[in-house]
């Protein structure tokens, strides 16, 4: 038995749970490969590109990506080991194969990889920070591998800043019993184009908290894949994005429940403001036939702050077994409407403060879930900065 739901046309809500549904183009059958020939340049009509601005991503579709556009710097916790290795290092390429064109160009073009290893049993006493700084718009490939060995614990924050044109792979290996948090922050300057394939494998009784935060850049497209390799795995995927005028922010994730007794929770929330702001969230969850006792729930919420912005939200749950502990999803896109603003202002609250209240309220719970104080503080500051922008959008171009 196989089941699928597609809610691409759902506007407002409905949280609901599934016993069993029916498939259309199963995620299980999606081609993955390390070979450029297998995954050609898309025309934009393919399922995985249909929401994307393929024209703006063209540079990253090319096979001849360089390595000069982005510099990488790491500040590691004392327990954590950092290496720069050549592309033939045996540890690379173990967290799954590329699943789309930018992932395959990134894989084939990178010269050196940054490998962050949390040694077995080690508990990192501090956050490890990996900073990718865009220094030119030359189309560039980069590769980062984060390995949490057995029973280790660590938090790794990967930061993206500056102007860049980057096709990136982030491999994440969480070995048995390890607890790893990986935070990827896309805080690019205007003009940046970024595609990133995150591929994670989660071992026995291992836990991955995967956090994606996207604020800056012209086009950002992140595709996190998580695959369970043994029982007892736990994945929590949290995402937060804030799109401004003409920004395209796309998050497409795939959780592969390939083994029994694993748990996944996905919560992504986004705010949009300004004309041409576009966000896309696609959440594919596959519960394979043998993945008994799977427990999964995914949620996406979008808050549209001004006219002219568009949020696409497509939860997609495929269930191939009847023996599940729980499976559900919810998706909703709401507007910050003038009536809300009027209500708050009619209680003496000035407009900027009213907007802050609503947007903070929208993100508050999610920010709390990240559990990394330095990231939480930065996030709150970034949200404030975005809101300042929204005020200038509003005062600069009053709408009826």
């Amino acid at each position, binding site marked *: 038995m196989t089941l699928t739901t597609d809610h691409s046309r759902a506007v407002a809500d409905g949280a609901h749970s599934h016993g069993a549904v029916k498939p259309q183009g199963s995620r299980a059958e999606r081609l993955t490969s390390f070979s450029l020939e297998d995954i050609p340049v898309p025309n934009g009509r393919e399922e995985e590109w249909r929401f994307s601005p393929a024209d703006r991503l063209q540079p990253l579709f090319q096979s001849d990506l360089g390595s000069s556009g982005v510099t990488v710097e790491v500040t590691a916790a004392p327990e954590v080991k950092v290496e720069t290795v050549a592309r033939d290092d045996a540890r690379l390429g173990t967290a799954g194969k590329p699943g789309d064109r930018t992932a395959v160009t990134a894989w084939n073009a990178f010269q050196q990889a940054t490998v962050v290893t949390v040694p077995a049993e080690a508990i990192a006493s501090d956050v490890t920070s990996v900073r990718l700084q865009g220094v030119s718009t030359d189309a560039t490939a980069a590769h980062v591998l984060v390995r949490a060995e057995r029973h280790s614990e660590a938090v790794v924050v990967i930061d993206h800043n500056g102007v860049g044109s980057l096709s990136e792979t982030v491999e994440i290996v969480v070995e048995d019993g390890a607890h790893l948090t990986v935070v990827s922050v896309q805080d690019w300057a205007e003009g940046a184009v970024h595609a990133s394939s995150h591929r994670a494998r989660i071992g026995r009784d291992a836990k991955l908290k995967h956090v994606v935060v996207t604020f800056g850049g012209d086009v950002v497209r992140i595709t996190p894949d998580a695959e369970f390799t043994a029982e007892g795995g736990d994945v929590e995927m949290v995402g937060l994005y804030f799109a401004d005028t003409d920004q395209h922010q796309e998050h497409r994730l795939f959780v592969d429940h390939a083994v029994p007794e694993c748990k996944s929770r996905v919560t992504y929330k986004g705010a949009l403001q300004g004309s041409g702001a576009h966000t896309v969230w696609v959440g594919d969850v596959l519960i394979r036939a043998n993945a008994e006792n799977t427990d999964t729930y995914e949620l996406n919420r979008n808050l549209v702050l001004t006219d002219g912005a568009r949020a696409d939200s497509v939860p997609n749950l495929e269930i191939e077994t009847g023996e599940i502990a729980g499976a559900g999803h919810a998706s909703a896109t709401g507007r910050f409407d003038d009536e809300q603003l*009027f209500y708050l202002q009619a209680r*003496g609250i000035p407009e900027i403060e009213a907007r802050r*209240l609503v947007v903070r*309220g929208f993100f*508050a719970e999610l920010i709390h879930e990240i559990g990394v104080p330095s990231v939480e503080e930065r996030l709150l500051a970034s949200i404030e900065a975005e809101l300042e922008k929204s005020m200038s959008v509003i005062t600069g171009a009053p709408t009826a």
Partner: protein
Amino acid sequence: MPTLEIRDLHVSVETKEGPKPILRGVDLTIASGETHAIMGPNGSGKSTLASALAGHPKYTVTSGTVTLDGEDLLAMTVDERARAGLFLAMQYPVEVTGVSVANFLRTAKTAIDGTAPALRTWGKEVKGAMENLRMDPAFAERSVNEGFSGGEKKRHEILQMELFKPRFAILDETDSGLDVDALRIVSEGVNRAKENTEVGVLLITHYTRILRYIKPDFVHVFVDGKIAEEGGSELADRLEEEGYDKYVGANATATA
């Protein structure tokens, strides 16, 4: 004594077909401590008057003046009006997801008073006011109006009236949708506010039952965008018996 003075107020609403005139010359003066009831048929413009006074962006004042204590109310933004002492209990209170009632009340109180309320006393005050209105303390942690029943929304509006201590409060059909007990509880809340603060009240209603709890000093009949008749509380009883035919008819012949 502070007064809310409405003079020859004309208001249009923005529609797709262009501005549509709704209020056609409203004259009304409310002094502190007074309670004025407005009754009138559906669609006569009562909510429009309330919204226009509060400054809702959909409504445009085309002529006339409104002053609060001599200050030009119409020159103020929505939040400035509230800070000047105007309160509107809405006919349809709006849901604000993710903002807790507690946070909302504190933020609004701070904005209105210009300084944050003392932490200790404020908590007690909110708790006490909620108790008086028979609101479960759990409401403090819920999102503003989200999932509230019709009656719970109305209690929440009156809770705010009691806590914010406005100088003038417009209650737009606060009584509709309330069961008999809730009507009494909510009316008691309004009466407490009247006793404690000398608030002037403009009470919009379709029913005399609320006027048995909240005694109006004046009753105004609102028809076709303006006040057609004024009287004491006896006028309300007469309206309940006779309806608005007389006024609507008169108006129809006048415009024919």
